[in-house]
């Protein structure tokens, strides 16, 4: 019998958003009736103008904020990826009540603890969960090497550049091997080159891990480059204007940004974004 390449088993979270509305105490409607099914293992970009309710939506998915009405459920799935690329997913029902332990959140800025070096910062999530010291340091070193910061692991945040700080923040999110990674405009404050490098890195990390990624951004180029599927939301209150599968190859290099098909996908999102912000064009 010929040796078969065994299927890879990965895990991602499926997120179901069911007519979710969020009204703040001030009467401000941040999110107005959003329905979404985000399958396990998908890379979803939520694209919208600044000040739309997209961050609020992300916070609700994380459980940091509660919807005024509607429901959000997150259920982990096991993804079976066959060598020929076919993906089948099976629900991991015994996980569902501990789903919060399997998610990570990356904020707009790095938000590292300034009194800890990179290693100490990246190990923090495992420390808070009570992992033994040796195990969490090993996991932290592994996560740090994934984002290419091994040479800087003893440095403090004040000694790092903005891009390196964000890498450390990313490593901190990855250290728990989350099944759902939520990112809220994480690279918005970085210069264009650093941002593109981090986008490429994130895309690779996603391909390696099979986790579900929800990435909030106001950059059309970033959304196009990163995601399998992009949702364009309107100015507040956030409503879905466009739900669009990004038709680009799975392996994306930096040269992709110059291709005509990339420009075509960007144009689709651009049109929707302009529609959502009230016919600015």
């Amino acid at each position, binding site marked *: 019998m010929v040796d078969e390449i065994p299927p890879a088993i990965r895990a991602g979270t499926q997120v179901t958003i069911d007519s979710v509305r969020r009204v703040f105490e001030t009467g401000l409607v941040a999110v107005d009736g959003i329905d979404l099914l985000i399958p396990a293992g998908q890379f979803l970009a939520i694209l919208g103008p600044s000040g739309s309710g997209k961050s609020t939506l992300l916070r609700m998915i994380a459980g940091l904020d509660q919807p005024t009405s509607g429901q959000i459920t997150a259920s982990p799935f096991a993804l079976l990826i066959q060598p020929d690329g076919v993906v089948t997913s099976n629900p991991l029902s015994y996980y569902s009540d501990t789903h919060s332990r399997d998610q990570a959140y990356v904020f707009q800025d790095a*938000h590292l603890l300034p*009194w800890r070096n990179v290693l100490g910062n990246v190990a923090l999530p495992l420390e*808070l969960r009570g992992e033994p010291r040796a195990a969490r340091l090993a996991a932290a070193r592994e996560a740090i090497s994934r984002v290419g910061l091994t040479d800087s692991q003893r440095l403090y945040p004040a000694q790092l550049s903005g891009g390196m700080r964000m890498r450390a923040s990313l490593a901190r999110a990855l250290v728990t091997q989350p099944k759902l990674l939520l990112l809220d405009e994480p690279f918005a404050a970085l210069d264009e080159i650093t941002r593109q490098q981090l986008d490429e890195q994130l895309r690779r990390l996603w391909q390696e891990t099979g986790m579900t990624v929800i990435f909030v951004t106001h950059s059309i180029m970033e959304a196009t480059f990163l995601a399998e599927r992009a949702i364009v939301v309107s100015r507040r209150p956030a409503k879905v204007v466009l739900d669009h599968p990004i038709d680009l190859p799975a392996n994306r290099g930096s040269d992709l940004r110059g291709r005509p098909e990339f420009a075509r996908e960007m144009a689709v999102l651009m049109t929707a974004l302009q529609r959502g912000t009230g016919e600015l064009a």
Partner: protein
Amino acid sequence: MIRRWVSLILPPLLVLIVFIGASEAYIRWRNIPIYLAAPPSAVQEAMVEYRPELLGALLQTTEATLIGFAASVVLGILIAVLLASAKIVRNAFYPYTVFFQTVPVVAIAPLLVNWFGTGLLSVAICAFVVSVFPVIANTLAGLLSTDPALADMFKLYGANPVARLFKLRLPWAMPSTFTGLRIAAGLSVIGTIVGEFITGDLDTPGLGVLILSGIKNSKTAMAFAAILLASLLGLAMMSLLNLAGYLMLRHWHASARD
């Protein structure tokens, strides 16, 4: 390196020499009687003459200052943590904390004598009373300014309240706490001296007692020497605090990097 030190030390040293020379000259030229103001040379003589008394008093005052200051650090931080724990607690108690600060220590010192007698305990309480508020106020401000994103992160990873306090909120407040501690260090010396004026024990006299008795008994030079030592004690406290702050914050806070 040497140039830097010279430029750092020389100007204040020059000011000191000019000041000492000028006061010596002025007091001699105007023939100001010794019981009104002592010229620096007389202060120096008094330092030698009353050396055992002065050193004993310095030790006594240092002890009271350190006890009062330590109480301010521990209780001040504890009170700030309690005040920061909930808005309702803050609303209920903070006004009284502010009120407590406005009570003049000179006014309550006689009461302390009634309650605790004269001596170390009452003096240390005076030092505590004047120095605790800056610790509370600054630590509280630091605790309340904790980065909300980091607080969210701790929540997401299921951190318990103890971990939140010791791994996030107290370290976050540290630069602010140190600002309070630096102020408290200076104030605790002042509180001790004022405390000694009223609640000091004549059997174990501190610098405050020597200052008062020196002035009363026309030993003005000795009083000046005691004042000088009290100032040096305050300076030493501040320097120690600056050093501690530098060592703890040097990696991460702008205030410690200069």
